[in-house]
Every structure is written in C-alpha cells, then in structure tokens.
C-alpha cells in the first residue's frame, strides 16, 4: 500500500523534497557563517519551518496521517516555540553583540564543505536501500548534522552553542522524517516531549548562568580543569 502511494506522488513530490533538502543544507551553511545572534535564531526558525514542510510532504508521499501530526508538532515546536523562547531569552537576558568564533569564517566554511563531501561519501552507499524519492536525503541530513556539530565547536557563547545544538536536532529530525519516511509515533512523541523539557532546562539554565556569572560568555564556564 505504501509503495503504491509513493509511486503515485513521487513524480511531483520528490523534486520538492530535494529542493527542501538543498534549502536545509543552505541554511546550515548560513548558520555556520552567521555572527549575529538574532540572525542565528531566525535561521533556526527557518530550519524548523523547512522541517515541518518536509514532514508534511513525506506525509503526503506516504499517505501516513501520523506524519501530518508530526508536521504540525514540528512547526509549532521547532518553527515557532523554540525561536520564540530563544528570542525571549535574548531579550530578557539582554545579550547583545556578535559571537566570537574560535575559527574565522572562511576556514570554517571550507571545513564545512569538506564535511559535506565526507557526509555524502558515507551516505551514498546507503542510498540503494532508500526509495527513489528520498535519494540523497540521508547525505544531506548527515551533512547538516556535521555542520551544526562544527558550529558548536567553533562558537564561544552559550546561546550560539545552544543554537548549534538545536540545529543538530533539526538535522536529526530531517533524517528521521525525510530520509526514512517517519519514525513510529510513540518515538516521535517522546522526542517531542524531550525537546520541550530540553527547552525548559535551557531556559532555566540561562537564567542561572546569567545570575551567577553576569554573562553568557563561555569562558566563565571553563574553570573546572585538571591541568592546574
């Protein structure tokens, strides 16, 4: 049944999915290059929206109603709630200015390109097991994952690290929905729940860090060390 519906819609939907995937990758690179916190959050929101659309498309493709639920969940949490919370935090904590980078932007971008190539080379052999509609998706998800990882490594502020972390989450979501055509509902719900709790924790954290250090700069969080 599933196979049948895939055949029915793939002609229209799979190019759209691919476009979304490419867009996802672009957004990831943009995140890697962006210095301003506000823009970072905006990009993150775009990623969430992209994800939601992707999920909906896959739902259309497979005819699985659960994925529509998932899409709505994604849009509300990742596309709206999360950026809003971050934005709210930013305002409340009065964080301003640019993000220090451990590595300059061009080199980071170059590294990012290498990572994308690497991700594709890992994922390419696996494409054979995918339905044709989602060829290459896994590679892109993996690339997005690695790029956000790289972003976390190169950023030196707590908020930007969290943004990287959430971007990583998005990449995973992309893999879970677009590449593998949806996880079981119970798992999705669990993941969503965790994301919510995670947000709360992040929020609590930021206030605690701010209260304690008067800053969200990471170098205040580098005091526990062994090589004294």
């Amino acid at each position, binding site marked *: 049944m599933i196979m049948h519906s895939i055949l029915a819609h793939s002609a229209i939907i799979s190019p759209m999915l691919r476009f979304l995937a490419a867009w996802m990758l672009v957004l990831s690179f943009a995140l890697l290059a962006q210095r301003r916190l506000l823009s970072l959050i905006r990009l993150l929101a775009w990623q969430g929206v992209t994800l939601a659309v992707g999920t909906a498309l896959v739902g259309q493709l497979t005819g699985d109603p659960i994925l529509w639920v998932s899409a709505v969940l994604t849009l509300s949490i990742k596309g709206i709630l999360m950026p809003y919370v971050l934005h709210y935090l930013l305002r409340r904590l009065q964080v301003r200015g640019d993000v220090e980078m451990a590595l300059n932007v061009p080199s980071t971008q170059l590294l990012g390109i290498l990572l994308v190539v690497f991700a594709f080379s890992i994922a390419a052999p696996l494409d054979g097991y995918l339905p044709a509609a989602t060829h290459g998706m896994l590679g892109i998800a993996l690339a997005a994952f690695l790029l956000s990882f790289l972003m*976390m490594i190169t950023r030196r502020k707590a908020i930007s690290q969290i943004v990287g972390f959430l971007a990583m989450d998005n990449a995973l979501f992309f893999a*879970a929905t677009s590449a593998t055509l949806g996880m079981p509902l119970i798992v999705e719900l669990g993941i969503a729940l965790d994301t919510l709790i995670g947000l709360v924790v992040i929020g609590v954290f930021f206030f605690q860090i701010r209260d304690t250090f008067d800053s969200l700069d990471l170098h205040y969080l580098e005091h526990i060390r062994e090589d004294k």
Partner: protein
Amino acid sequence: MIIFWVLVLAGAGVPLLAFLGGGRRGARLFLLLNFLVLIACVLMAVQVATHGIIRAGGDEFRVDAFSLLLALVNSTVGFSIAWFSHSYFPKEVRHHGLSAGQQKLYHSMFQLFLFTMLLAVLSNNMGILWVALEGATLSSVLLVSLMRKPQGLEAAWKYFILCGVGLAMALLGTVLLYFAAEPALGAGSDALLWSQLHAHSAALNSGVLTIAFIFVLVGFGTKVGLAPLHSWLPDAHAAGPSSASAALSALLLNVALYAILRFKSLLSGPVAGPFAAHLLMGFGLLTLLLAAFSMFRQQDVKRLFAYSSMEHMALITFAFGLGGPLAVFAGMLHMLGHSLAKSSVFFATGQASQEAGTQDISALNGLLHSRPVLGWSVLLSVLAILGMPPGSLFFSEILILASAVQQSWQTLPFLLLGLGTVFAAIYPRLQGMLLAPANSLPHRQSGVGGLLPVFFQISLVVILGVAIPGQIELWLHDVAGIVQ
C-alpha cells in the same frame, strides 16, 4: 502487568513529588515510593523466575534476564539513594539554604531520573530507550546544577551540551537502525522493537547497521563515559549532591551501556560482529588507561571516584567486547557489583565531604579515628571498589582477565597496566582518608542511619563474591545468550 506497576509507581512519583516534595514529608514520600518500586521489582523478578521472559503492552515492554538484572539494580540502588538522601539532603538544604521549590525540584527530578532508568531497561522499543535516556539526562542536569554554585552550573552545562550532542548522535543511530529495519519489518513501531529486530537480525542491512552502530556507540558512549567522550563525567559527578553522583555512576552509566549492548546484539553477523566487539574492546582499554592515569593527581574525592566509575565501565565494556559466555558473565557481574559498590562509595564519601564542608581529600584525613562509623563505611566501600576480595568485583575482575587471556592476550599488558595504576592511584588516598593524622574533623559520632545502605549494599557485594544465589547466577548466564 507487574511491569506496569513498576513504571506507574515510579512515574506517578514525579508529579506527586513536584507538588508534595518539599521538606521532611517529601523525603519520606520519596523513600516510600522507592520502597514500593523495589518491592514491585522484586515481585517482577519472582515472576520472571517462574515464567521466563514477560511482556506487557503488546510487545512494547519486555523483561528478560538482562533487563531484569538492571531493573533490580536500579530499584535497589534507587531505594538506597532514597534512604541516604533522607538524612543527607536535609543537611544540604541547611548548608546551601535551598528553597522549598528547589527541594521539590530535587525530589521530583530524582524520581523522574529513576523512572527513566527503569523505563529504559523495561522497554522493548529502541526508540523509547533513547527517549528515556534523554529524559534521564535532562533530569540529572537539573540535579547537578541544583546548588546554583558556579562550579555546579559549569559542570551541568558541559554535561548538558556534551550528552545532548551525544544523544543526538545516538538518535541518528536509532534513526538509521529504523531505516535498516524498515525493509525487513515494515514501517511502524514493530521496526524498533528489540525482540523483533533481534529475531530478524540476519535480514538487516549490515552496512547501514555499521554506521548506525558507530553513531550509537559514540552517542551513548558519551553517557557511558568512554574516552575521549568522557569529559563531562568527572565534572558532573563532582558538582552535584552526592546522591546524584551515586545515581549517575550506579544507574546512568549502566543503562547507557545497556543501550549500546542491546544495539550491538543486533549486529553479531560474521562481518559486523567482530567489528563491534573490537570497537568495544578498544574503547574499553583506552578509557581504562585514561581513567587510571587521570586518578593520579586528583585532589577532589568525588572526581577521583568519578574516574573510578569510568575505569569500571571501561572494564565492563571491554568484557562485553570480548564476548564469550564467561566474559559476558563477568561483565554483567561486574556491572552489578560496581553499581552497588560505587553508589556506596559516593554515599560514604559524600557524607564525609558534607561533614567536612569540602571535597578536598586531604581535608578528610583521619576519618577512622574521628568518625569511626563513617570511616568504616568509606573503608569497606572503597575496598570493594578497588576489587578486594571477597567482594564480587574481585571475582569479576579475575574472570575478565581470564577471558582476556583466552580470547585476546594482546590486550593483557594494557589491562594490567590500567588495573595496577588504578590501584596505585586510589589506595594511598583511601589510606590517607582513613588514617592520616586528622586536622580538620573534630571527633564525633556521625549518624549511622544514613550509612545503612552502604553496609547493606556492601554485604550484597560480598554475597555476590562469596556465594551468588542460584537464580541470579542463572540470569547472569542468560545475559550471554541475550547479548550475542
């Protein structure tokens, strides 16, 4: 049915404690809940002993020997933690001036943590397993940062980020697993049920599984504390209240490893099997050596034993990597022994550092003279963790070495170097803590009540080393069949 009771009892505690968890009443409620959970787990064990594997909720929950043993450990240590925290936490509250909200947070988050630990091992669904571990991370992060001290915040932040990233990787691995299983098992929740996957493991694509396993290993491995993914571990152990450190060491690390092992059991094919085994052995040895040498310069008692947890998890990982009935038996036994002994260590040293007001080892000198009961509990638990006979860790360490001799003698030098170094690093600290001329702690009889779990758990460890009850021995043997 009993599975539900276990989970409901544990889970219902979370909101209950969130509302009623303040003050003495909260502590008592916490204790009562975990006592009930323990009883339920024991009943569950009785049922497994009579009926074999039991299931619930279709096939969503499933208890075999592996999960049962871990559930038993989790509930036992959970109960001990509740007992310990009954006398420990009020003093923390006084010392740090914790508000009622924070007390509620402590109790409910602890209960959530214990719930997720049970959920993780009782669930048959690899996805739920991941969800439970993520939940465990989130709840324990709040425990670590409970005191709002800079150090605690920093540790909690690192813990959160590193383990969050780790779990993200593990999720990617899970997704890939699902991806590999879908063609064989069809879409839907069956494709993530471990029992189904295990039954069809031959049909799973080994290429995908390999990559999935790498992600899962690196991801959950972060939680196990495998080097070089371990950086959060000593910080987090040192920062939180001692009850939380005990919980992290005794429960979380085990369950994370449990997840890896469940995963590994799916790729025991002729190609993928040795690959996974070698990875586990390699990580085990690397971690062992790194943890061993890290202990040498430790001045913080909780950091020291956090590294010791790493070392023991490394040994267990190594043993499971070796495979073979004897090695798995030894690894499982070591897991049980380590959980019981290590939580005791954190109870004892936790109380000591609470009374001394510092975690600096040299400030704890002369415990045996100034606080005999406390001194004895430190002595016994640390000796058990050092693998001294007749504790079970001694037994399992010997068995691990013996299996290493049989199956992979090349690893022996590293193992021996690691074990020797660990001993060289921990023992002098113990001796100092017990016997060095005391300069800080005045002589006082400390409360015995809070330390009862130490003696209780150490006697369990000794029983496991001297005469393992027959039924548990059977289960331990069964684990080998499950993991491979």
